[in-house]
Structure formats: structure tokens, C-alpha cells
């Protein structure tokens, strides 16, 4: 699968309150959350981004709260993937669990600029900057987590496991 889109760039330590402020957490409806995606980092983001666009950020993306609403808002807004130097651990896990593709790549986080057109080979973790004609390699995903992604997210993974137990 190739993810392709225009890049919106953010800085370091983008916290989950910036991704989806708590004042909108009286709902967990993805479409509602999407309307406020990244609002406290860039109030215009929800209206100016296009489906398929890519978020590129610095270190520790998604720090702060455990709210799964953060990756849900990003995914529901139509962002195809996030590329960052590093992720806060709960956000990292949540993204996999809900099926938001995210990639850890220091080189890409530095080299890619806002407005660049980027294509990501999701399986290989290869990030291509079509604007600059550069290629970066993202950190590979452990096999254990690849299985969760292959199953379509954690819930489908657990469902399959439980079905397996029932057969025994």
C-alpha cells in the first residue's frame, strides 16, 4: 500500500491536547473529532487539509494523555499517515490499535518541508519525497505489531485469538 499526500509540518512535543483539545472529548464520534483535529496547534488545519495529506513532526509526537481520540481524530480527518522523529509511547500504541499508519524517521522529519509531496510504502517503511526527489527509511515495525496490523487492528486480533480458543 502506498500512502501519498501533501505534507503539513509541526514541531516537537505536539501533545494530545493540541491534537484534540479536551473541550471536544464529550463525544467519541470520529467525524466530530475530525472537525477539531490539530486545532490548538493550527486552528485552520481541519479546514485547509485535504484527504490523503500527511503530518510530519519532530520528537515525542502525541505526548500527554492516553486519549485514543487523538489518533482517531487524525485518521477520521483523512490524514493518510504521520511521520515523526519519535512518538510518545501511548500514542504510538493507540495509533496501531486503531489502524492509523505512523512512521518513525528522524531523517524524514528533518528533511521534509511543509508543502512537499510525499509517498510512503507502508509495508517497507520507505518514505519518498517526490518534491525533493529524496528517499528516507523509517524504523521497521517489530513482527509482533505487524501481526496486529495484519489482523486489522487490535480488536480483530483479539477476536481471532478468542475464536481460536473456542475451537480448542
Amino acid at each position: 500500500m502506498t500512502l501519498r499526500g501533501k505534507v503539513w509540518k509541526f514541531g516537537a512535543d505536539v501533545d494530545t491536547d493540541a491534537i484534540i483539545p479536551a473541550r471536544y472529548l464529550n463525544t467519541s464520534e470520529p467525524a466530530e473529532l475530525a472537525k477539531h483535529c490539530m486545532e490548538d496547534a493550527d486552528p485552520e488545519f481541519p479546514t485547509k487539509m485535504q484527504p490523503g495529506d500527511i503530518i510530519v513532526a519532530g520528537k515525542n509526537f502525541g505526548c500527554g494523555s492516553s486519549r485514543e481520540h487523538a489518533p482517531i481524530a487524525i485518521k477520521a480527518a483523512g490524514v493518510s499517515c504521520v511521520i515523526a522523529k519519535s512518538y510518545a509511547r501511548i500514542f504510538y500504541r493507540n495509533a496501531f490499535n486503531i489502524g492509523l499508519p505512523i512512521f518513525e524517521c528522524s531523517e524524514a522529519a528533518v528533511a521534509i518541508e511543509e508543502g512537499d509531496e510525499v509517498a510512503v510504502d507502508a509495508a517497507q517503511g520507505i518514505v519518498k519525497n517526490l518534491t525533493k526527489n529524496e528517499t528516507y527509511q523509517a524504523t521497521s515495525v517489530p513482527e509482533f505489531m505487524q501481526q496486529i496490523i495484519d489482523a486489522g487492528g487490535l480488536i480483530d486480533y483479539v477476536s481471532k485469538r478468542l475464536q481460536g480458543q473456542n475451537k480448542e
Partner: protein
Amino acid sequence: MMAMTITEKILAAHAGMERVEPGQLINVKVDLVLGNDITAPVAIREFDRIGVETVWDRERVVLVPDHFVPNKDIQSAEQAKQLREFAHKHNLINYYEVGRMGVEHCLLPEQGLVGPGDLVIGADSHTCTYGGLGAFSTGVGSTDLAAAMALGETWLKVPESIKFVYNGNLPRWVGGKDLILYAIGQIGVDGALYMAMEFTGQAIEGLGIDGRMTMANMAIEAGAKNGIVPPDEITRSYVENRAKRPYTFYQSDRDARYAQVIEIDVSKLEPQIAFPHLPENTRPVSEAANVTIDQVVIGSCTNGRLSDLQLAAEVLKGHRVSDNLRLLVIPGTQDIYLQALREGLVEQFINAGAAVSTPTCGPCLGGHMGILAKGERALATTNRNFVGRMGHPESEVYLCNPAVAAASAVLGRIAAPWEVE
């Protein structure tokens, strides 16, 4: 036998293994799982998709509505209702209704639901609080909670550990909040990313259980997976008459391996202030002069415990809240509230001109009960000072300990407790 840290020992025990090493991915049995009125509705939706009839253990799935309760609006009421209905449907023993609840991370230790040696996951980032009792506990998202509600298990990567050694005697007015803020200031908000923070040393040995929970609570603000304090007699005296399950004291081996050992001399440490907009922006209180404030909040899972209220009341004694600001005091649980009433603290707060609220996370995350207007500035004993955390994106939050909060409420600006003595 390989030497292990306390974190590694707890993880190994729950993985059914002799030993574990940092970086290893393990499947562990959990002792307790937790959700609140923001995270549990998503978890319940995912749980229902799994297709199991009921939860893995109705005594070990804990639901606490605390963030937007008492219900702040219709949508929040719907979310709280989902918890209530799920709790009834699955006969959960540990559902805590408004009037009997508390801020989750104050409530669970108080009720003896968590103890030393436990492995707890909760869909709230501050679940790491229970490390103050010598437990391994960490925050997860709603989907991880849903899976654990069904299986009683989860997977974890064994973290490396950073050992903090706090040497020396704690100066007056310096507590757990200052020790953790200082550490975050030293290593940064991702300084312990994916790691365990183990808090040791003479200053920790003398620190009460509330202060230890404050420290473990904010481990997440350095990006850590968990914070932990080795259990001792102080821990034992707190848990022995509360624990609803057997508990185990684990200790790090003398030759356990650490990614880093950080020594801190506390003997000359001042109360710490975290400036906007990250908890790592710390300065000693004496370097925070002339910061006027509009609102002071004393409460939260970080500093809403009885000793926090006692400290604030001690500083407030004989003083009134400045005409230029609002002081909000929010006891962490109903028991803490009641004890504060019995000790005359609530009367003291009200006489000083403070608002005293029923337990809620409310203002800490900009939910309700104390939202900031554009341009307003708050000083809070809470845990985060991100952009817009407590209200308008152009408001500001400063973090501090309860004594500094009380002194500042009196003087209308960030102030040291000794300025009002």
C-alpha cells in the same frame, strides 16, 4: 540468576517467567484494569466488537466517572451513562458513582484496589500513579483497555530503567511535586521515553505515600512508561489495612542494570514552578517573581490528597485569598473531602474565600469547573501546562506544589510559602 530491577521483577512475575530483559516483548496477566468517562465509552464500543459475553473478571474491571462529572453537559451525561449501563450489565463490583467516587488515581489506592507488586493498566495516562505503592502501572488507550477487559492480559515491552537517587534531607516546603518537576526539568518531557523511572534515595525514604504517588503520577510527563518507588514500611502502613488482595513487595537487586543513574542533591532544592507550555520548563520559585495569576487550582490526581489539602490550609491560615483571583480547592475523593471537613480544612478554605468542589478532574484538563478565558493565567497543583490545557488556547498554566499554590492565592502572584509566614 540475572539481577533485575523492581519493574523487571513485577513484569516477569506477571509474564510467568523467571526473568525478563529490557526490550523484550511479553504477554502479561493484569491484576486490574481501569477506565473513566472519557476513555471507557470508546473501550466499551471496542469491547462490544470483540464478541465476548462478559468481562474477564467483574471484580477487576474498574470504572470511575471522574473527568466530566458531575455531568457538565448533555453529551458528557451520555458518556457517563454508558459507563453506568455497562457496569450494571456486567455486574461490575467497582463502579464508583458520583457522590461515592473520586479522582480515579486518588480513589483506587485509597480503596485498597491496587497494592505493591500489582500490574495495573488503565485508559488514563496518569495510571502510572500506583508506582508510588511499588506497583507497575501504566496508561494505555481505550482499545488496549477493551482487549484487557476481555482477556485479563496485555502485551508490553520491558522498559529500560533510569534510577533517580535523591540524596539529602528535604527542605521545608519542598515535596514530591518538586522532586518530580525538578527531574522532568533535568531530563525533558521525553527524557524517559518508553522507560521506567525508579525513585530512590534518602529523600524518598522519608517521603510520605502521598508524595510518592505525586512523583509516580508525573512520570508520564517525562514520557516514561512507569514510575516506581521501592516499597518499605511507609508503604506497608498505608496498604496493610486497605488492601483487598494479597500484595508483594519487590525490590531491585543491588546489581540490577540501569540505562542511567541520576543523582540529585535535594538539600538546597526550592519549590519548583513549571512555566508554560511544557512541564519541563521548570524554575525555582524564587525565579518566578512578578507572575500575576487569575486562578489557583489545588487538587487533581497529582496533588488532591489529604496531606496536600493540609499543607495548603497550613499556608492559608490567617490569610485571605487575594481579591484579584479565584482559588479552587478540589479534594481528590469523598473520603478525603470528609476528612478535610472533620479537620476543619474545608471551613478554613471557605473562610479564606476559596471555592471547594466535589471531586472531579474538571479544570485540570479544561473540562469544566474552572475554565480559563483568553489571556488568563492559572497556577495549579495539576500535572500539565500544555497550550489550552485549562481553557482558551491563549490562556496559560503554571504548575507547582500545594504550599506554593496557597501562598500565591494569598498574594495574587506566584509566591513562595515563606513569603506569607
